[in-house]
């Protein structure tokens, strides 16, 4: 055993305290989550199909950027909300989406 290795009880891992320093955290998943929910609400209320589709994209992006410690329930709920927004928009108005130009 090399002499440098300490036989003493080694210090344990402590996850870096990101709660005390919010600047270190990546805000993307939270923003995307919020954006996704806003868009799916718009899509449902205003019956705008493109809003609902963007909401689906937002929830996917939020999922891709999320930390593993993050609540999967939150992810799943935003994902389900956006899917339901898309489905509802199509049930109410089965016409295909028209491009904005």
């Amino acid at each position, binding site marked *: 055993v090399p002499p440098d290795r300490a036989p003493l*009880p080694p210090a344990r*891992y402590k996850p870096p305290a990101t709660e005390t320093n919010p*600047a*270190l955290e990546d805000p993307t998943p939270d923003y995307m989550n919020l954006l996704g929910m806003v868009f799916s609400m718009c899509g449902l209320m205003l019956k705008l199909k493109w809003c609902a589709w963007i909401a689906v994209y937002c929830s*996917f*992006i939020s999922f*891709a950027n999320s*930390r593993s410690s993050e609540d999967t329930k939150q992810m799943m709920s935003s994902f389900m909300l956006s899917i339901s927004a898309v489905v509802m928009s199509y049930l109410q108005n*089965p016409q295909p989406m028209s491009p904005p130009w």
Partner: protein
Amino acid sequence: MKNLYIFIAVLFIPWSSSLAKYDEFEDGDDIMEYDDNDFAEFEDVSEDTVTESPQRIITTEDDEEEATVELEGQDENQEDFDDADTQEGDTESEPYDDEEFEGYEEKPDASHSKNKDPITIVNVPAHLQNSWESYYMEILMVTGLLAYIMNYIIGKNKNNRLAHAWFNTHRELLESNFALVGDDGTNKEATSTGKLNQENEHIYNLWCSGRVCCEGMLIQLKFLKRQDLLNVLARMMRPASDQVQIKVTMNDEDMDTYVFAVGTRKALVRLQKEMQDLSEFCSDKPKSGAKYGLPDSLAILSEMGEVTEGMMDAKMIHFLTHYADKIDSVQFSDQFSGPKLMQEEGQLTKLPETKKTLLFTFNVPGSGNTSPKDMESLLPLMSMVIYCIDKAKKFRLNREGKQKADKNRARVEENFLKLTHVQRQEAAQSRREEKKRAEKERIMNEEDPEKQRRLEEAALRREQKKLEKKQMKMKQIKVKAM
């Protein structure tokens, strides 16, 4: 950054849909089909319109293309009907009732003469058209989502492979230097897990501990977000590279008091602005390291010249020159507390906690297009880290240096106290008021009138004592002033 993402997403849609747009009206058969199927609905309204319209030249349509195609369709229709004429009883070739064409034989000549009536063709709603092509936007969206998912899987796997390649390369060196390699803090006993902690799809941690002079070492593999398609697209415009960040926490007795940093000029300028300790103790701009033989790309930030002299020994210079392209920044600090905290006015009542730390940030070669083999080139950098740990332990400031360092620290603390003096006073004042209010409430809540009276008297007496004390102090100050 977010604006960029939205811009790209918006660009994506029109570009791909413009490719799909003109498929709609190429297939005349479809038009013919739906024409007939739909007009079957109007069967009982008027047979005239059913039989006449296919022959009409449609002028009410806006789209010329549509008109020309339907003309073609009409010709085909006409041929079909002609066949129907000759094969009246033959129901195999046509899916329609014979009844539909009951009055047809009389019509052909008669209808030509009355083609002046304006016919308004109702535009068949797109969703009744039964053709997938009208849903091209939706197909585009789903394709985009599938592309995103594919990229997620590919990116995640690549990051995973890179992380494990790094770990496999460095495992031996780490295990020979640290007793505990890999810990996630959940086990009761301190046993090496021998595995990386995956924090994210692009961030992997490794905690090593059990070495003389350092409390522990946290290695963070900060890869690029290959799992996020938006990030991948953004990186096409602004290349970035994966980073390996190593943070060694030193024991208090194993490091002297100094603040020192070396790295690329850009990185140092940024760190000087962001990091609490560098901004307070290293007030000069980053200096060139050419005096010590360092390449031009590297610069030095130091609390005092003596520290630089002590740090820049031959081996260190060798490391820095050879691996200059991979080094982003190296920071030794006894006052390390991380980046400056953004706090509102009036909240800063205590200096942030500091720890003696060595912080190394390395760039993985390849600038984003890394392969697992590139991880081997980072191994010498880990040796440099181990060397620095030992060096930091051995390096001690001389008497002058120590005095200067102590003076600096005292100065910083004094500045801080001055700034927060007002806040601390206010905090103390509010605490006193809280106490008084609590007292009063207690008195009010006392049901027993006797007790109430007694408590009130006690409070009054205390107030009076305080006043007297204050008056005494004022008198003393006045006397002293005189």
